[in-house]
């Protein structure tokens, strides 16, 4: 299978106001068309940084090295114009909070059609017709009426569907969903996940799905990358997440979600020794040996975050 996105040995350093922090420390992964790759790991592990690096949304001051190739093209080398075209034609992004990512002062229709009108120069009427069709596709009833409403008049789940419709409007090839379901209640989460899956399969999108929800990641994704402190510590097929995981961090993550069937007197805790093991254990499941040795090298430096 030819890969849509190939990220190799990506290192990102961000300045937090006092010192440079290594947010990504030699991350390599690929996404193929029609594939959903899940990113899991605790807050601050670098999941969002990885996705933002792919969309080139990191702060201008960020130091980035390694390579990001989209369809064979070097994303990090894009000039302004190429970058805008890459974002508008190839990328669809869905963020955590639909309320925050949709402009509250214009109608839902303006939001959904904006990409078509502003970057594809589609006439207004045609863009609205397309938007209506897309809203139908993501399961919104009475799409014409919703388009005329303002974001605050829609529920969170419905607005997130509209965001997905907007992301799909320009027929992207890569979908980046950064905790797209986290802000929603459980039934809405499942619906949004199903819409993302249908879009990925139906349109042959490559999708990166960031989540904290291990069950959801296991059910929705094809492959899962487990991140810890800026590195991918384990990559494995989603069906092996429960039962097949080997890296101590992945195992600890899974243990921290006790099953509802078992009685547990105490939740397992993470000790300093555990943390040491998370850092020093070799990465599991990466195709190339380079990554494993790179992570070991940085682990021996210590202090990498």
């Amino acid at each position, binding site marked *: 299978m030819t890969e849509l996105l190939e990220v190799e040995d990506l290192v990102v350093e961000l300045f937090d106001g006092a010192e440079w922090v290594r947010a990504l420390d030699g991350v390599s992964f690929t996404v193929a068309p029609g594939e959903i790759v899940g990113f899991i790991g605790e807050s601050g592990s670098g999941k969002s940084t990885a996705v933002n690096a792919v*969309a080139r*949304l990191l702060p201008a001051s960020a130091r980035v090295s390694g390579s990001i190739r989209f369809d064979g093209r070097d994303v990090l080398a894009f000039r302004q114009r190429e*970058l*805008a*075209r*890459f*974002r*508008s*034609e190839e*990328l669809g*992004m869905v*963020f955590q*909070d639909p309320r*925050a*990512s*949709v*402009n*509250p*002062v*214009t109608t839902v229709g303006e939001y959904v059609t*904006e*990409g078509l009108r*502003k*970057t594809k120069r589609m006439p207004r009427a045609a863009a609205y017709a397309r938007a209506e069709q897309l809203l139908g596709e993501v399961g919104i009833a009475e799409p014409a009426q919703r388009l005329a409403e*303002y974001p*605050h*008049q829609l529920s969170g789940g419905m607005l997130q569907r509209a965001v997905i419709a*907007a*992301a799909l409007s*320009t027929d992207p090839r890569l979908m980046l969903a950064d905790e797209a379901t986290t802000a929603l209640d459980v039934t809405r989460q499942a619906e949004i996940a199903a819409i993302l899956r249908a879009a990925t399969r139906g349109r042959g999108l490559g999708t990166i799905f960031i989540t904290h929800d291990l069950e959801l990641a296991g059910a929705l994704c094809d492959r899962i990358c487990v991140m810890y402190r800026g590195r991918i510590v384990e990559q494995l097929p989603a069906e092996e997440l429960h039962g097949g995981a080997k890296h101590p961090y992945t195992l600890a993550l899974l243990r921290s979600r006790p099953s509802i069937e078992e009685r547990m007197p105490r939740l397992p805790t993470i000790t300093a020794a555990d943390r040491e093991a998370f850092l020093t254990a070799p990465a599991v499941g990466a195709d190339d040996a380079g990554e494993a040795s790179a992570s070991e090298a940085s682990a021996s430096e210590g202090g990498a975050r």
Partner: protein
Amino acid sequence: MPRFIAIRVLEGLATLLVSSFLIFGALYLAPGDPLSYLIGNRTLSDEAIAALREQYHLDDPFLVRWVAWLGDVLSGDLGRSITYRDDVLSLLGPRLATTTLLIAYALVVIVVIGVGLGIVAALSRRALSDVILAGTSIGVAIPSFVAASTLISVFAVGLGWFPAFGPGDGFLDRLYHLTLPVIALTLASGSYVIRVTRAALREEAARDQVKAAVARGLPRGTIIGRHILRNGLTPVATVVGLTLTSLIVGSVVVERAFALDGIGALLTEAVAKKDFGVVQAICLLLITAVVIVVLIVDVIQVVIDPRVRERQGIAA
């Protein structure tokens, strides 16, 4: 929407009614007696004094006088000036033109330069932004009377670029004459508008929806116009509205400094001479202007931001 405007107009009228009472009452709390000014140095007989009291209704109870005055004002009769011995309305007419032009000019300067520089400061690189910000720090600290005398001594007397006083004849000459007064009037409030605009737009630019717009690859102009300016305009509109009301009040000082024959100059003179009719009429006029400005700002906010519309319970 019409319902919302109707309610706001009623609220404005209520404000005016209350303030008319306060204006009318406040003058009687101030020390001194209009009669003493009317009489001046002359010695009048008791009959003559009684006739004067009769003429100016000084013997009627306070409330009766207020109602009578309000009735007169509503029918277009603002009373007579004791000092000018003329109808207040005909005193106000020509002066109103000067003051209106002064304030309109100042407003244009504030909107174009104040909001404009605020936009530049918000979106430009750090260095330029800092220079503008430093300028506004000085600007906000200069009261209009200080600015007025400095501008007169430097640009009118020293360099001779601008006239030092008088309103001028003909539209362009008037604008030329009003330029220094407008600078004096807008220095502080304009600086304030720059700062507020910059802060509001900075805040908008940092929002997730702007990042989302960038991620969609929208053109820079679209992002600035539709996502940053459009959304940051609500606080800017409010501040410009409030500034306008302060311009109306600030014009009193500036008109005096530049010897402009406007409403403000008339007001200070009338206060000094206890010319009740004129003071009352001008105060009422200023408050009416403020009420209208506030009403307009409210309506603009509703037009700009659908969430305000929602809160106010207005159907779009």
